[in-house]
């Protein structure tokens, strides 16, 4: 067998007709924290249950250390693998140390009373789980966070080289989450345990796990270190959400920022061609406009926008073709050509209420050169606040556009209504 603590080799688990795990191959190594990620129903809990023999594989093999799981007695399994389910009955109202001592059961002999060595293990488990202050309490009197630590202590008292934790941070506040996961890390490091932990929170997984295995519909969709695994593409493929990947400046760990909007389907093939609308915005003035237009099923383009501008981030997330420019630099000739190309394809142009300076004045100049000023919809600039940082040039162009038939809307709602009336939506 391998030197891995836990090894799945082409494991398939079925619940009746439903396949919960499909051909899963993965391993967990001693000293490593392995995070299991995946949407609800992707097979995380099933994988953990199969690892302690609560679900038998329909095909494939599960190896624990040097043995196959199915070849071990229940007690021998319990000495190798400890499991903390997401939910379990509270059980009787026991003193905390007696409850934690249940973890010693697989090590106990029938006619031998619990030894001082067992007591020492229980105390150590309470200390490692941060529950040493709870030694004189009863389990029914514990808060959610305290109970979680005491359950964790019970699992540690098993002294198993493989520790499986199913959503241990559910119902915990952020402080308790970080505390628990920090303790999980030190268990792996100091005791050379292989810890497999099902986690919903990918950012916690990226922060605490050495490796992430992503399950999707019972299959392994990705397996590797957090930096290699986490990507907006993966989140979109597996969870169906749009996200943005960033790196923490100090730890260099990746973290994902999910976007709350729904991803519009990529240009649907078939059906009537959608009306093309170009958006000029910047500095966040376009965020809402872009989303509402996408939601209203317009085909949208945007720009020119500075790279890293919040509007360009939204445009990217919504997969809107966008002309981008390096931040704080004047719009280059190449970018202007791209904007011109977008404008040529557009049936209408929506202009947000954004500040105009020398860097982005070129946008307005392209607008002024467009041949259908009556199809330009401008959002009213809010009051007399300074938005024109070009010494009057921007205001002049804007006034010119309005004179030549462009429409000014006082609200986004009014603007969208106007747009809808033109294109029969």
């Amino acid at each position, binding site marked *: 067998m391998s030197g891995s603590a836990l090894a799945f080799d082409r494991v398939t688990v079925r619940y009746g007709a439903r396949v919960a795990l499909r051909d899963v191959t993965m391993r967990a190594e001693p000293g490593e924290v392995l995070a299991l990620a995946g949407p609800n129903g992707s097979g995380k809990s099933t994988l953990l249950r199969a690892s302690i023999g*609560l679900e038998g594989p329909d095909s494939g093999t599960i190896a624990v250390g040097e043995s196959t799981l199915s070849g071990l007695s229940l007690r021998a399994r319990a000495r190798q693998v400890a499991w903390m389910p997401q939910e379990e009955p509270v059980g009787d109202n026991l*003193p905390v*140390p007696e409850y934690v001592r249940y973890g010693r059961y697989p090590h106990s002999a029938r006619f031998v009373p619990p030894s001082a060595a067992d007591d020492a293990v229980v105390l150590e488990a309470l200390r490692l789980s941060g529950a040493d202050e709870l030694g004189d309490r009863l389990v029914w009197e514990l808060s959610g966070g305290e109970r979680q630590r005491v359950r964790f202590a019970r699992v540690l008292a098993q002294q198993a080289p493989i520790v499986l934790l199913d959503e241990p941070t559910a119902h915990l506040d952020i402080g308790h989450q970080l505390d628990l996961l920090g303790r999980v890390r030190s268990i792996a490091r100091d005791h050379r345990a292989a810890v497999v932990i099902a986690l919903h929170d990918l950012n916690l997984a990226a922060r605490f796990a050495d490796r992430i295995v992503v399950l999707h519909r019972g299959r392994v969709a990705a397996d590797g270190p957090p930096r290699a695994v986490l990507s907006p593409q993966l989140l979109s493929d597996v969870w169906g959400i749009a996200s943005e990947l960033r790196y923490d400046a100090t730890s260099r760990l990746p973290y994902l920022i999910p976007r709350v909007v729904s991803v519009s389907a990529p240009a649907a093939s078939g059906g009537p061609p959608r009306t093309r609308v170009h958006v000029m915005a910047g500095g966040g003035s376009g965020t809402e406009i872009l989303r509402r237009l996408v939601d209203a099923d317009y085909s949208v383009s945007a720009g020119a926008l500075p790279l890293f501008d919040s509007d360009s981030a939204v445009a990217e997330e919504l997969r809107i073709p966008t002309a981008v420019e390096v931040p704080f630099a004047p719009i280059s000739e190449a970018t202007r050509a791209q904007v011109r190309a977008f404008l040529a394809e557009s049936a209408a142009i929506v202009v947000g209420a954004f500040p105009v300076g020398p860097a982005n004045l070129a946008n307005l100049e392209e607008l002024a050169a467009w041949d259908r000023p009556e199809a330009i919809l401008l959002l009213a600039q809010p009051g007399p606040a300074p938005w024109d940082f070009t010494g009057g040039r921007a205001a002049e162009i804007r006034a010119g556009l309005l004179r030549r038939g462009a429409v000014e809307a006082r609200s986004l709602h009014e603007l969208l209504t106007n747009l809808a009336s033109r294109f029969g939506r």
Partner: protein
Amino acid sequence: MRRDPPNTVSRAGGGARGRSARSVVGLIVVALTLLVVLSTLVGPESLPWPATLAILLHEMSGGHLAGMPCGSASAAECRIWIEIVWDARFPDLLLAVTAGAALGISGAGLQGVFRNPLADPYLLGLSAGAALGASSVYTFDLAPAGRAFILPVFAFVGGLVPGTVIYFAARSGRNSPQTLLLTGVALNAIAAAVLATFLLYNPVANLSVNFWLLGGLEYATWSNDGLVIPVVLVAGLLLVLRAQEVNLLQLGPDVAQSLGSDPRRLTRQVVLVTTVVTAAAVAFAGIIGFVGLVAPHVVRRLVGVDYRRVIPLSALVGAGFLVVAWDIAQVVIRSVVIPVGIPTAFFGAMFFLYLLYRRSSRSRGVGAP
């Protein structure tokens, strides 16, 4: 912040509990012994109490002590007294102790594996099934010669039917108290219907069949007791050996299995053992309700929830409850011995109602997830 020296945290709690549990055990043993001795004074016949106690001492010591137990009474009278005390009252009491213990451990074991505080051999229909098996021996006049042997066997087979049904109900019903209890109610009703038919089918056997309906200890003999006592002792030992696994099962079958116990095998074994021991009690004492329900609850109140203590102590408390019920059955109506199942049902059912309503007014029941 409190700082205990490391080793005292678990020791303090466990040690104090251990001491108080030991003194509770001692107290219960002393109380039960006293209760049995004093109960020899109770019966429809009125005997002088010093003579009764002296007879007990005389017989127990094998004739070495209390040489003239009856005092100034005639030898013929003394022989009758000795027969009443030593061959009638004392075997009855011994059966009360044994059957009470049998029902007590059955209740504790069933409540443990079904994680349901209302489980009990009577409410689950095990007793009715065993009674049906036993009474069919009389109804169909089976094996008149080997009756002493065949009776407990039939009681066991009769108890196995509801035992099997309950086992599967408990598995598929996911331990829902309603499913289990309603199954018991149904099994009880079916057994009662068949027993009622037996009464009509063979009027000659009526008296015997009636006996099983509400239980009684008056037909106890030394040889009957000799059959039941070893069964109860062995069953008690088997259940105590499984007690730690019953404790683990309170965390749910999955967690119990992850800790190295086999919850399905455990449930099978406990249902089998409680069926055997209930059948042994029912074969000679008839259906006695509620002892198995009451005893474990009283014990949990006294020493906590650890089944390693709850099971053996339920034997003692069940025995005490049945002895008291037997005393009441003999004195409540002058010169008539009423079936012992009447006082146990009367007081046990009141306790049952108390449990039901206390449970519903508390948020955390024992079987709750």
